[in-house]
């Protein structure tokens, strides 16, 4: 029966069956990986046993016994554990990343827009900044700011100051710090209420505009709610905050807010470096909006401001957001270069001091990597969510 023979699948040698082959390849790959992992673990166990290092996370609760120059949470060399040191380092990393992201965004947007300016000098100046900064390694810039600029600042006696309020010398940057007394909760509460109110008002205004076409002064009202309300509360509560000014003594500066020179150098370096990259992202994003869009907006009778706000920026943001996210992540990862200028970030404290003291290489490196991985994943998830919200909705 020739028909029955034809209807069956063609007879192929198992060797040439794509399915069999694909399974075979994957089995081989898995076998290799399992073998490598197994031998790595066995070697590690051997080597650790020979070096008499107990593996495990027992060190987490041991006393750290070293000092940290900048601690956002309570920490002392004698009483605190390695685990506490980890949190101190993590918070320092997050601090520098958060400050850096805000400042680099400002620098990047200003320079990116300036580079597209019709003003010849300004455009060339921005281009020069971007090209120079982008082509020099970040580490070199950090070392330059720290060793050649901040270390070369005058010492305490001749420190630069503005009206006895702000001081800059080779020990760091000193500024007044706010001191809160009771009643500040009222101001904080007013701020939260203001933000919630502003969001609610913006929603109501959008609904009203969708229904009637009438616009409302959202910006002004939001400003009044977010800044005005806490101000009113501040005075109503009898001004529960004062500024503590730094006082210059003979040997040190007491009081006020002290910012370590390491943090200043790291921030300047990161902000200038990442700012140059963000400038390029912004420039590419704005240039991606075709000129026809601007012209069409003009033809509809929109003035320059509304054209930018309603037509160009929303479209440019779609192009800008994804690369901007990766620049934020780069900044966070690059903040690990803190170790070279001695700023006590996660890598300096944990992968540096803790690793040297305990010898728990595998655990320490793994924890550090896990932290950066989680920061990366959380940021990408947040940015993806935002990106999905503003993405072009196509049918």
């Amino acid at each position, binding site marked *: 029966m020739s028909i029955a023979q034809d209807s069956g699948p063609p007879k192929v040698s198992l060797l040439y069956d794509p399915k069999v082959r694909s399974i075979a*390849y994957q089995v081989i790959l898995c076998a290799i990986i399992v073998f490598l992992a197994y031998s790595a673990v066995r070697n590690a166990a051997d080597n650790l046993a020979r070096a008499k290092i107990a593996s495990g996370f027992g060190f987490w609760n041991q006393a750290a016994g070293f000092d940290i120059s900048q601690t956002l949470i309570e920490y002392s060399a004698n009483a605190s554990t390695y685990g506490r040191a980890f949190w101190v380092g993590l918070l320092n990393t997050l601090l520098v990343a958060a400050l850096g992201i805000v400042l680099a965004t400002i620098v990047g947007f200003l320079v990116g827009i300036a580079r597209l300016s019709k003003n010849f000098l300004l455009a060339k100046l921005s281009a020069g900044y971007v090209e120079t900064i982008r082509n020099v390694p*970040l580490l070199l810039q950090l070392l330059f700011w720290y060793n050649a600029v901040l270390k070369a600042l005058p010492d305490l006696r001749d420190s630069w100051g503005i009206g006895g309020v702000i001081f800059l010398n080779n020990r760091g940057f000193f500024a007044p710090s706010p001191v809160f007394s009771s009643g500040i909760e009222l101001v904080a509460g007013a701020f939260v209420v203001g933000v919630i109110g502003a969001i609610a008002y913006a929603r109501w205004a959008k609904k009203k505009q969708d229904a009637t076409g009438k616009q409302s002064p959202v910006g002004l009202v939001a400003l009044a709610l977010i800044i005005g309300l806490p101000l009113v509360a501040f005075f109503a509560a009898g001004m529960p905050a004062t500024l503590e000014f730094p006082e210059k003594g003979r040997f040190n500066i007491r009081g006020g807010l002290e910012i370590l020179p390491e943090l200043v150098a790291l921030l300047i370096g990161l902000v200038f470096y990442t700012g140059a990259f963000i400038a390029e992202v912004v420039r590419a994003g704005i240039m991606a909006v075709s000129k026809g869009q601007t012209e069409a907006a003009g033809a509809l009778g929109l003035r320059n401001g509304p054209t930018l706000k309603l037509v160009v920026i929303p479209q440019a943001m779609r192009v800008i957001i994804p690369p901007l996210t990766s620049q934020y992540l780069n900044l966070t990862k690059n903040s690990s270069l803190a170790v070279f200028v001695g700023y006590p970030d996660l890598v300096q404290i944990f992968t540096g001091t803790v690793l040297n003291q305990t010898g728990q290489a595998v655990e320490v490196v793994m924890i550090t*990597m896990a932290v*950066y991985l989680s920061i990366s994943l959380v940021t990408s998830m947040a940015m993806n969510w935002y990106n999905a919200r503003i993405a072009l909705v196509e049918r």
Partner: protein
Amino acid sequence: MAVATQDSVNHSYVRHAQVDAMPAPAATTGAIGWIRANLLSSATNIALTLFSALLIFWIVPPIIEFVFVHAVWSGTDREACLPTAERPEVGACWAFVHDRFSYFIYGSYPIPERWRVDVFFAMLAVGIFWLLWLEAPRRDLGALYFFVVVPIVSYILLNGFETIGLRRVDTSLWGGVLVTIVVSWVGIVFSLPIGILLALGRRSHMPAVKLFSVIFIEFVRGVPLITVLFMASVMLPLFVPDAYSPDKLLRALIGIAMFASAYMAEVVRAGLQAIPKGQYEGAMAVGLGYWQMMYLIVLPQALKITIPNIVNTYIGLFKDTTLVVIVGIFDFLRTVEVSRIDPKWAAPTTSATGYVFAAIFYFIFCYSMSRYAKSVEARLAKGDRR
């Protein structure tokens, strides 16, 4: 002859010669016009011009003064670069760079053997020139030379090979520009093929292959290079038997190659995604197998459009090589760091001089790479222009 008669009629109110157009107002042409249009067109523009001019005036003259005017060009030790009564302002201490120049280039590589490093640089330069010059003859041979011949020969040359009379030079003696070039070049040579494999793996239909590629790429891209180098430096020796423990330089090279491969994989993947599905289907329809399809049809097109991004990855890699100091390797920046705190040259401007010199070095390399990427981009865009 009607036309001729009409022409010859002499009416006084008819012009006989074309009158030249009047010149444009002086304020809109030439230098003045340009300045008015580009610098002073409105109040905001004037303010921006003033601001930029002030900024330039504030930045540029001090730099020129530091680098040229007040610079010290010759001298044998720190005395030359110290400020004195008759010369209170001291700029860059170029005498220091001149004195330390060979250390910056070779590190502690033994002096009688330094010709080997020179040969290595020359071989590399020939290879780079051969590959980058697009009209060069036999560029396929050039690729073979660059990716196969040079690595083997230079390994023998730099590391030494007793049987042919080359003294062994331990990698702990290597340093300076030599190490910077070796590290970035190893990264460049290894990251492209590994990156291509990872990118293909990530787009593969085999779940195990895909999973492995995704995990590797996302893991490496999610952590800072420093931690990868730490891992290579402190964990790698644990994972291999004691006898095979790799030396410091090799560990750093492995870390850099891993890191660069993951970034390269994403660049190549973007190129692969830009190739229309019809190309894959067409290749399959003419009966090509997977590797033939990739090698003959897909990769040539995908790599072509990713060349600018590949070069940009290389620039990043070149800058990142400075981080190998964390595992105790004397790259170029490290030699500058060590020299600038040398008491023999302790002077107020020594540090800044060292950093400016290093910055110029890195800038020249990175800027020429990015120019090359731009020119390739422009050349490729020609084909798409209608």
